[in-house]
């Protein structure tokens, strides 16, 4: 990263005081960013009803009781399955539909190009409130309420514009010379896309897919309205039950939160490096 000037003090080298300040600043930030997550894990490890105190006794009476209860005595596994199915289907459909659009917008300056870009951006602005009632009526008419495919269709409204936008950013980083070479070799524009660019864009697709999955995984508004039936709930809806107005059990809540966050977090950390380039490449190059 930092290049050195020939002779003199290299750039990026600081006095000891500045270094201490820098590390102190970052450590404080890390503490704030980690604290809620750490507290969540610690609370989930307390025995039943341990959440009723903010006191922390870590190792003398930690227990997995909350986890056992979540997995056996609640509908949690069912909700998890629903969530995985919904998010997985949304991801596959979103990426499949959006890949070509991302490519077209990234490569071709066709008339309407700017219009499509703006359409993709504007649809991301749509507040839940405006689409939800018509969509609800549409779903009710088609008998898709309390059906996973119905929820997936609703999520398409969020996922598709977003995926197309992400894919565009990624295709922008693939040099256009590669396409031109493909065309010279006699491929059609579709051939170039399918045989040359798509394989090169695999990391970008992975990131978009993951991001799409996470969007559907964490959605609450549509799910609350469309999946009212007990056994059709997704995690975001189901978890609200654990801390309802009349009864709450934060032990169950924290344990299931950990169970949800751990796999998501692990995959997230694996792809986050690509995520950075995928998100910013389009913006920095443009």
């Amino acid at each position, binding site marked *: 990263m930092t290049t050195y000037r020939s002779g003199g003090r290299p750039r990026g080298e600081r006095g000891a005081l500045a270094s201490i300040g820098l590390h102190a600043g970052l450590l404080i930030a890390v503490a704030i960013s980690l604290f809620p997550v750490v507290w969540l894990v610690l609370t989930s490890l307390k025995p039943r009803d341990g959440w009723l105190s903010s006191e922390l006794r870590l190792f003398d009476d930690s227990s997995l009781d909350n986890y056992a209860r979540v997995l056996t005595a609640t509908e949690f596994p069912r909700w998890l399955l629903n969530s995985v199915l919904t998010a997985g289907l949304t991801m596959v459909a979103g990426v499949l539909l959006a890949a070509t659009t991302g490519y077209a917008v990234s490569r071709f300056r066709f008339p309407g190009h700017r219009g499509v870009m703006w359409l993709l951006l504007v649809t991301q602005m749509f*507040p839940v409130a405006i689409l939800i009632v018509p969509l609800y009526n549409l779903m009710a008419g088609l008998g898709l309420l309390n059906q996973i495919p119905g929820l997936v269709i609703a999520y398409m*409204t969020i996922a598709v514009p977003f995926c197309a936008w992400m894919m565009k950013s990624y295709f922008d980083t693939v040099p256009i010379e590669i396409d031109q070479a493909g065309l010279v070799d006699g491929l059609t524009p579709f051939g170039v896309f399918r045989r040359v660019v798509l394989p090169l864009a695999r990391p970008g697709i992975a990131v978009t897919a993951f991001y799409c999955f996470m969007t559907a995984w964490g959605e609450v508004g549509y799910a609350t309205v469309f999946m009212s039936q007990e056994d059709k709930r997704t995690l975001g809806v189901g978890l609200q039950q654990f801390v309802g107005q009349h009864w709450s059990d934060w032990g169950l809540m924290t344990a299931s939160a950990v169970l949800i966050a751990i796999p998501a977090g692990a995959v997230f950390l694996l792809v986050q490096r690509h995520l950075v380039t995928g998100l910013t490449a389009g913006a920095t190059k443009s």
Partner: protein
Amino acid sequence: MAVSTRNAPAADARGRRRAVPGRLRRSFGTHWYAWAMVAPVLAVMLVLIGWPLARGVYLSLTDATEANIGRTIGVNVIPSTYEFVGLDNYLRILTSDLFWDKLLWTVIWTVACVALHYGVGLALAVMLNRKLRFRSVYRVLLILPWAVPAFVAAFVWRYLYNSDYGVINGMLKLAGLGPVGWLDDPVTAKVAVIAVNVWIGVPFMMVALLGGLQSIPAELYEAAEVDGAGPWQRFRAITLPGLRQVSSTVILLGTIWTFNMFPIIFLVTRGGPGSETEILVTYAFREAFTGIRDYSGSAAWGVIILLMLVVLALGYRRTLRSQGDPW
């Protein structure tokens, strides 16, 4: 592009139809594959967004509620009895104090959140962009909140804020201070939800800005240093302009996302106390799905929210354009 040449003989063969205005046809000949690639998404957006949107706009001009909308109960089909009422819903909303209260709070919420996201994100990105021991460790740890699904984060924070057994009050007690009913008082509840949203949103800004910082050539800083520019001058003259492209995108996206941020307020405070922390989006949602469901009123709220965002985005684009950005 190279492909356009293949098109010429075909156009000659169909000479008779060349009388059709040439520009459009030529454009179609050159760009049909681009359109073909965009088509699936356009089709989906038309059906899933266009139709509900049109229907939503129409509903907003009627007096539809749960009571008078057409529905099927068992084998009985009950026809709709709602009527077209023109702009009544809009007039009712725009003349109510409630709307302006909610708008004010939504604007405060959006500005505060985006400013803090950007400010904190930029500060952390600048720190992380230095040559630094444990840099990648810091980076991963700071991104962590982003990996937590928003609804999980919302629940966690609600627990932290709990006035009886939340850890924040626990710490206040240790410091010898009395407990605070964080989510029971309008002011603290507002501060609380902003804090949650900042916690969730900073990593995205940090990561995007860090990417932007790394694309600024190091030579620029060296040249400036040779010319005797101090750190603050370098920051203002190189870093900020170098981040223009990234900043304009993330600020616009951030504003839109925050304006429409649903799960945080819906799950942390449920809009309470009263409806004090309810922003426009959550309010419209509640309008539509609690009590007697007011479909038309909620649709009208939605249209108003959307119009405000579109105006905002257009104004933003105009400002950027006048400063020489491509879009």
